[in-house]
């Protein structure tokens, strides 16, 4: 990664360090487009939401067995697609969008024998939207959700995880992730905490900021009550006043050095990292200390049960971060390089176990945000890189499926209790109001009061596809 990042940094002359340099250059009459100004940190128009909690299930959640029930699968189980009344659903044009990363990759091939639903469904809430029995708590909260059943993407392997965050296929030039854009576009609501936090496992590229610079990368946190933040407290004999003086001195010395080395992005990023570090050392342990929460709240997130505790703890921490003004909290669920939701076999055992880990805590989070009045200004996103094939893989699994899958959004000016878009009868293609992943990005930015196009930086032309389109149908 190193070489690319480095060259991006230096070439763009942007990022945190670049900003300082950019203004300096402008003053000295050098290069850069004179009309361009870095973001002020204020929304471009009145915002409906302040923060985002981004839940991402790594590996690929089956849409048919979660939020997009397809009884036809059970009805025609074991038949080939051609033997069902829906043989015409396959759409070569849509299929062509997929770009294979690994040539001859066995992943994501068509599995043409219909595999029956592995779980039952029931309607929930007043809206009566059907949600699978693996998500009973979310079913009870369905009136808060806007389920988008018509997502599609173009990578049929797990590079789709990066794609869902950055909007670009992994074979493309990489763009900053949605979290980095929010971090870049919006000012801080709390100087003491990172504005962009990642929790949970990440195996692919971890450099969210890309050409915006390392200052816009997510700060990874491990929510470990024994050590909420490594080296959070001075281990030597030093008072807090002395420590503050030290940080202060370091900052001033580095700024003096920056006058000798204008254009040194690493130095500028380090200055910022020290400023944040100093404030973080108190604020992070306080923010992640869930001990002060009531027993009732802890139970709400499933902290009293081993299965739900790890994820619940992260979500509870996320709520506490939101309360404290963190803009973007991204939580990855599912360990392993591919992500544990990747149920090529034993889908039933896999999904029933994993859904039990996330269902209750996620519903708990929604409930908790709501009763604290935070849901209005916080958007919760529940996403995954792709769905799973309607046909079977092996005897009891489903393969990767980029042609149609589901995500949901809640809070922050998003309608509750609605379904937007649809896949065909077999859950194969997104056929109604289909949305590429950047439409989710566009929707978030819109609710946060940002115009994606206004954030574009010189020499970094973005494509229309990168901006996506706001999913108007889910907005209040």
């Amino acid at each position, binding site marked *: 990664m190193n070489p690319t990042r480095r060259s991006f940094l230096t070439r763009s002359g942007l990022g945190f360090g670049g900003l300082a340099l950019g203004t300096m250059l402008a003053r000295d009459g050098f290069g850069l487009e004179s009309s361009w100004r870095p973001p002020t940190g204020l929304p471009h128009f009145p915002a409906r939401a302040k923060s985002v909690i981004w839940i991402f299930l790594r590996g690929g959640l089956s849409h048919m067995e979660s939020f997009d029930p397809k009884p036809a699968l059970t009805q025609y189980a074991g038949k080939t697609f051609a033997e069902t009344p829906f043989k015409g659903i396959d759409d070569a044009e849509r299929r062509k969008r997929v770009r294979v990363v690994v040539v001859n990759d066995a992943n994501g091939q068509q599995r043409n024998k219909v595999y029956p639903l592995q779980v039952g469904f029931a309607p929930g809430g007043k809206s009566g939207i059907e949600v699978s029995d693996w998500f009973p708590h979310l079913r009870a909260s369905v009136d808060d959700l806007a389920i988008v059943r018509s997502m599609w993407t173009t990578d049929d392997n797990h590079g789709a995880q990066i794609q869902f965050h950055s909007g670009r296929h992994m074979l493309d030039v990489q763009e900053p992730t949605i979290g980095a854009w929010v971090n870049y576009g919006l000012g801080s609501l709390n100087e003491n905490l990172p504005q962009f936090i990642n929790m949970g496992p990440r195996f692919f590229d971890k450099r969210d900021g890309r050409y915006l610079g390392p200052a816009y990368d997510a700060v990874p946190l491990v929510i470990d009550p024994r050590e909420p933040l490594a080296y959070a*407290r001075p281990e030597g004999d030093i008072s807090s006043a002395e420590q503050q003086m030290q940080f202060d*001195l370091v900052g001033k*010395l580095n700024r003096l050095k920056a006058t000798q080395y204008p254009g040194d992005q690493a130095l500028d990023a380090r200055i910022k990292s020290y400023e944040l570090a100093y404030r973080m050392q108190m604020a992070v342990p306080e923010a992640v200390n869930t001990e002060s929460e009531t027993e009732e709240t802890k139970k709400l997130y499933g902290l009293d049960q081993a299965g739900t505790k790890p994820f619940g703890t992260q979500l509870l921490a996320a709520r506490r971060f939101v309360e404290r003004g963190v803009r973007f909290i991204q939580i990855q669920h599912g360990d392993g390089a591919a992500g544990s939701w990747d149920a090529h076999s034993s889908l039933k055992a896999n999904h029933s176990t994993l859904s039990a880990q996330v269902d209750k805590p996620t519903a708990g989070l929604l409930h908790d945000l709501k009763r604290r009045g935070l849901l209005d200004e916080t958007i919760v996103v529940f996403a995954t890189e792709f769905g799973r094939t309607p046909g079977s893989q092996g005897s009891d699994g489903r393969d990767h499926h980029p042609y149609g899958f589901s995500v949901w959004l809640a809070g922050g000016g998003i309608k509750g209790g609605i379904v937007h878009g649809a896949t065909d009868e077999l859950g194969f293609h997104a056929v109604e109001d289909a949305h590429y992943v950047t439409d989710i990005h566009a929707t978030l930015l819109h609710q946060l009061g940002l115009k994606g196009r206004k954030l574009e930086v010189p020499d970094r032309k973005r494509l229309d596809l990168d901006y996506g389109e706001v999913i108007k149908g889910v907005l209040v």
Partner: protein
Amino acid sequence: MKFIALIALAGLVLPASAAGKVDYLRDVKPILAARCYSCHGALKQESKLRLDTAESIRKGGKHGPAIIAGKPAPSLLVKKVSAHSLDERMPPEGEPLHAPQIATLREWISAGAPAPKDERPESDPREHWAFKPPVKAVVPEARAIGEGAVGKQPKAARTTTSVRASLITNLSPLDAFLEAQRRTQNLNAQPPAEPSLWLRRVTLDLTGLPPTREELAAFERDLSVSRSPIPAPASGVDEQVRKREGESRVRAAVVERLLASPHYGERWGRHFMDIWRYSDWWGLGAQLRYSQKHIWHWRDWIVESLNADKGYDRMIIEQIAGDELAPTDPATLRATGFMARNYYLFNRTTWMDDVVEHTSKAFLGLTMNCAKCHDHKYDPLTTTDYYAMRAIFEPYHARLDELPGTADLEKDGLPRAFDLHLDRPTYIHVKGDEKKPDTNRVIAAAIPASLAFKPLVIAPVPLPAPAHNPALQPWVLTNHLLAAEEQITVARQSVETAQKKLTEVERASGARTPTSAAPKPDAGVRASAVAPAAAPPAPAATTTAEQARGALKAAEFTLAAAQLRPAMVSAVWNADASRAAHSRSNSNLLAAAATAEAKFKLAQAQAELAKAELELIAPATEAKKKKEPDAEKKLKTAQEVLAKAQKAISAAGTNYTSLRATLKAFEGPDESEAHRQLPYPTTSTGRRLALAQWLADRQNPLTARVLVNHVWTRHFSQPLVANVTDFGRRAAKPVHAELLDWLAVDFMEHGWSLKHLHRRIVLSEAYRMASTYGSVSVRASERPDSKSLSLSHSLTLSPAHTTDPENKFYWRMNSQRMDANVLRDSLLHLAGTLDPKLGGPTIDAKREDSLRRSFYFTQSPEDLNKFLEMFDNANTKECYRRDESILPQQALALANSKLVSTAAAKVAERLVKDSESASDEAFIRTTFTTLLATTPTPAEKKLCADSLAQFLAAAQERKSAQPEAKARAALVHALLNHNDFITIR
């Protein structure tokens, strides 16, 4: 991942019609190049079709012309790319061509498929720059460049150029190549960095430790001596030239000192450990799954080899085939840790894949791994080539051999490679699926045909006996006798303890005359072992006299057996040696060994029986009892064993158990111990040796280039060939190809000496440049009248900053962040607490108080040092370059860890002790020069003085002992957090 960018770009091509008439070169060719050439170009000609010139497109292949000019619809090319069926469609892999691309092709054909006449076909892949041996280009002459460029340059630049041209007549070849390139871009090199910054740079770079205060002072002193005027230059030598030469000598002396330091081998050893994927063993609990125990012997070999400046060619050969090169020499065998490290318990194919991938990447800069499932898309590497390379490694396995010192392989041993399965066939796995081997064809060991500048010459290597039977190594007898003596000592202590216990028990129970429990080991008669029925049940935790006597007896028998072991070891050793040395071994020796073993076994059986008897009368704790078989049963077994042993002694024959002195790594989780004990082959296939010699051949076009690029990358923090592991056809000829080639040839001409290469680089002008982006010099800020805070007004960024922001042309030095190891080691070194001990077993990664250099910590995916991990420590699975992240957590580690605060206090203590003046001002200056190798500006001085006063007040306020020392330590601590401490400028 980046490699497929071509395809991505092709996807973004706008429909040509939008831009007007379709142009073949601009619009058509790029589409074909991106999507078709890999099968219909120079690399391959599927269906005898080439699409890399308009002419060959018209000509077509097996199925006729690919196009009919003027008629797109019936043209085969159009039909194929727009076919719906996947069986028909071209390209068969990946996404189909986009509609605008197809439209472009159609439009071009409609227009009659016009193309330039002189179009050249895609060049032969073998013509790729990196596949041809490097040659030394003529070194550009500095003066000529200067003069030649003058005419083209603007007036202002001209003056500078001519002045500089006169100064650079003596440029090193390295600098001459770089300067020639800079001139083409009208770029001026930055002036040299402050000498002290250069010293810090080169010292950290070559040893991984910062210069000491004394070294900094000595360097300044030597420089000023070299610059001082001498009376009346006798020969009229130009004063400036003389000064330059004097200064060069001083710098060269520094570099010699650093290269001679054992720390050089540690620093660069760590770099090579990154590239060569050093990892200590790991697994699940005690089960070894990856790498090998005691693999640190390989690390020590790396460090020692570098310090001895062993040729890189030789290093390659020893690492890949040390066992075939010097089969009985442990010092060389250590090198094969490179092979042993790839050991993987569960899946041989995964293991082989790792070896093929990383041997190719590390030494050849080839992404051989891309050819595992299909022929390489860009390089002339076929799937057969992939498996032919695997075949080279197919026979090899890993094992541990005894080393002088101990017979216990858990304590120490030599992890090494050896050929175990000489005839195991290699098959192609269809589409990379190991469950589908194509058993119709055995793939022979070979190197890729496209790189066969000379064929692989494979000759089996007959192994001397101690190579396949390490028990014959001279130290093995010593090891085992030592172990036997240790057992005697232990057994003797047990006897003494048992005797004491018996005395105590008897005294307590009313002093009965002890019946001698002394055994007569040779008697072979055993006493009845019936427990006295009348014996009262022993109260818990007390011992009866009966039991104590039993224990003594067992101990005495055990001692007796132990005392027979040395004789057996010697006899066996002699017999083994005789068998190895003569085709007809001395049967007397064999019989002696067999008898000695029989005697020992008898004594052992007696001891076991005594123990079984004891267990009957002195049962172990309840819990233990449940788990163990019934004591009666045990007793019976012991009696049977004894009976057998007694019989054996009268007919010992000539069969005995040889010494082993080696332990083969498990070939999978289910392998039995007995299978592990089978003898090793007496020859090695010689395949690895042949590969290694081919890699280290002067004619190999890649090996030296790849190495030079790696070394360059670490000195300049930027490679000459962007992807250090891919010199294939995706690597365009680099801007500095001539420089790279010159260095590669020069490197080989100088015995593949790394130290020679380092000298070439670190003594260059390029390496001396400042890392600034503009012409703000530190000197300017030192002017007493300068208000340094207003510096920003006077700074002028170099125009190079906009024309070459990536520094492709090396107009300035790149600064780099200290890597994790350098950072921690530097802290300890400055604190004066670094333990300079070289080599040896690893240190527990959790030992934060260790004072050894960081790379001695155990490191594997399971063993990570917390502090080092914060700073992008090497990933043991693959680390061709380290990452350089900047995170707030790193700031916390530097500000809050005990490691840094302890170091700060020690550094401050040393600086106070060492500095002549105890004044704050002197302290600040010394601290700056020692930690950052630069003098503080007035603003920095003032800031530090103010802070020092604040720190002092704070320390006094909280009534610290020695507030002055505390305050100074606090200042040092802050400077250790300074950007320019962790940065190598």
